[in-house]
């Protein structure tokens, strides 16, 4: 009896020990796991940071930009220093030679903004200048720096209440660099149009944007065969949004200048006039929506038009399949609503497999861990706002951003 009581007490003590250890274990696990979950949730649920920049002149605008984005600009440029070293070693050209080469083609407004940024951010003018040539010079040198963006411009197929709009994903193979560089700016320049732009810290010019006159603009990288002296992409994007009041203005400007490399520029205005301007250093061609007469236009990372398709230096399987996925999703619809656009931007549909699967680069929303979509953007010129999703659209929420407001998360 005494032995039995002793055993029962011993078992009870063991159980108490185990319970105590279990409680300590769960508490420690909770302390380790939940802050990370909390931080992750906080980042997902707090709205994206919108930075308003303004100035009485472009130099002051740059100073404001440099002050408000100082940390990010410094972090971008510290990574860039390494890439710049590789660039010089690979091409045998110095950074100064690159600057002198492109300097005549960069507009005065851009140079003033960069000078202002250099004054307040602590990064030199030369480094910031090279940063703003990033998209024109680095993809040619570093094979891994490709882009996998998909875009569609909906004109006739848009609902009447919405008006013409575009949607696009922003992708990059150098995801470990690009995603942390992303910022949303509301630019209030001393002259010209106000803008909402999605870009990288330190870039003077958007990857995607909307101006206060209802002109929205996007750009997709193209592996074109002609590079040379011309205006860098980011500068041309900024100048287009700054002074254009319609798609026609934007097209006139983009076709009148010489570009440093090859791009697809997509434009739509509040009158639902859409166009895609395909450019190389020497040539350009405009695909007008009323000429193609499909009710929409699409662009990935190669030229589509007959005039320009021979100037694709390389058409990736990814670009082809994504373009066909756009055609499959949009062609048969009579009306393509904002819901359809959001679903398409989140689509992991792979046309080659004929299934919704999450591989790499053949779907509109890429989910590969190193090469995934880092932003989705829908510009609605008639309503004067944009829907932005920062991060992979499959895992993050859209926010509505206007010139005065930010609402969300919405969907």
């Amino acid at each position: 009896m005494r032995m039995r009581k002793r055993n029962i007490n011993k078992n009870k003590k063991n159980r108490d020990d185990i319970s105590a250890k279990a409680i300590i274990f769960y508490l420690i696990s909770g302390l380790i796991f939940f802050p990370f979950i909390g931080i992750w949730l906080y980042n997902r649920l707090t709205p994206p940071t919108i930075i308003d920049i303004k100035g009485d002149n472009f130099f002051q605008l740059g100073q404001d930009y440099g002050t408000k984005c100082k940390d990010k600009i410094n972090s971008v440029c510290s990574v860039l220093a390494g890439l710049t070293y590789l660039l010089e070693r690979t091409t045998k050209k110095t950074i100064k030679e690159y600057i002198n080469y492109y300097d005549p083609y960069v507009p005065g407004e851009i140079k003033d903004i960069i000078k202002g940024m250099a004054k307040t951010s602590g990064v030199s003018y030369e480094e910031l200048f090279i940063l703003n040539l990033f998209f024109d010079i680095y993809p040619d040198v570093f094979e891994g720096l490709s882009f996998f963006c998909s875009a569609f411009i909906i004109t006739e197929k848009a609902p009447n209440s919405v008006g013409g709009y575009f949607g696009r994903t922003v992708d990059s193979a150098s995801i470990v660099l690009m995603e942390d560089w992303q910022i949303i700016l509301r630019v209030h320049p001393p002259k010209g149009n106000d803008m909402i732009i999605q870009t990288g810290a330190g870039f003077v010019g958007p990857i995607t944007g909307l101006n206060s006159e209802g002109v929205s603009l996007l750009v997709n990288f193209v592996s074109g065969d002609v590079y040379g002296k011309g205006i860098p992409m980011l500068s041309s994007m900024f100048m287009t949004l700054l002074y254009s009041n319609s798609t026609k203005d934007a097209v006139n400007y983009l076709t009148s200048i010489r570009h440093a490399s090859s791009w697809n520029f997509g434009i739509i205005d509040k009158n639902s006039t859409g166009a895609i301007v395909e450019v190389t250093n020497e040539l350009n061609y405009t695909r007008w929506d009323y000429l193609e007469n499909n009710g929409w236009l699409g662009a990935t990372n190669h030229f589509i038009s007959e005039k320009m398709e021979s100037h694709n230096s390389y058409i990736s399987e990814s670009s082809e399949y994504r373009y066909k996925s756009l055609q499959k999703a949009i062609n048969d619809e009579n009306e393509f609503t904002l819901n359809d656009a959001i679903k398409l931007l989140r689509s992991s549909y792979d046309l080659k497999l004929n299934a919704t699967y999450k591989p790499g680069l053949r779907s509109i929303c890429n989910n590969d861990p190193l090469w995934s979509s880092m932003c989705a953007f829908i510009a609605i010129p008639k309503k004067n706002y944009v829907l932005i999703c920062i991060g992979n659209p499959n895992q993050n929420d859209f926010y509505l951003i206007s010139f005065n407001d930010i609402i969300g998360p919405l969907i």
Partner: protein
Amino acid sequence: MLKSKKIIDLNILYFFVLLILITTGLFPSIIIGNPLFIILIEIIKIILIWTCITLIIPFLMKYFPNVEEIKLREFSIYTGFSFLPIMISNIVISFLNFTKPLFPSDTISLNQLRDISENYYYQIIYLILPKILPIIAISIIIILITSFTKKLYGILMIQSLYIIAPIIILLFYIIPILISNLL
């Protein structure tokens, strides 16, 4: 008689383990309407993860001084049942995505959009829950496998956690990437 009853019981347990694994892999693909071969790939992925956990961890236990037997059968059954949280998470998320309200009508005002976005129930159920459930499911799997590894092999809880947590996290991320790249 006892031995055959034990084998039958084990077979029934393995059947349930397989059912859990198949249901875990089935749900996300079947809701979207994917073709059969993608559904099969999802199921194979989960079974492969389970197999790897079942093979790696017991054989690592061999190197502990007080561990005499690998106890592969018991471990594999326990591990299979630990996939229940992931199965439930997959079913709930598939259901939530299916029933998620769409973007509000194009004609409503910004103020109405603001009211909708500030609706806490909408935020919690449709925006937060689908993101947090997979993390909770993996955390529960780690805790469950850690606990019964400790019980089964008589090792310390902390030793069990140090071995199991990284393996589980790696397997749940690496195997899907490998299979995706094959396609």
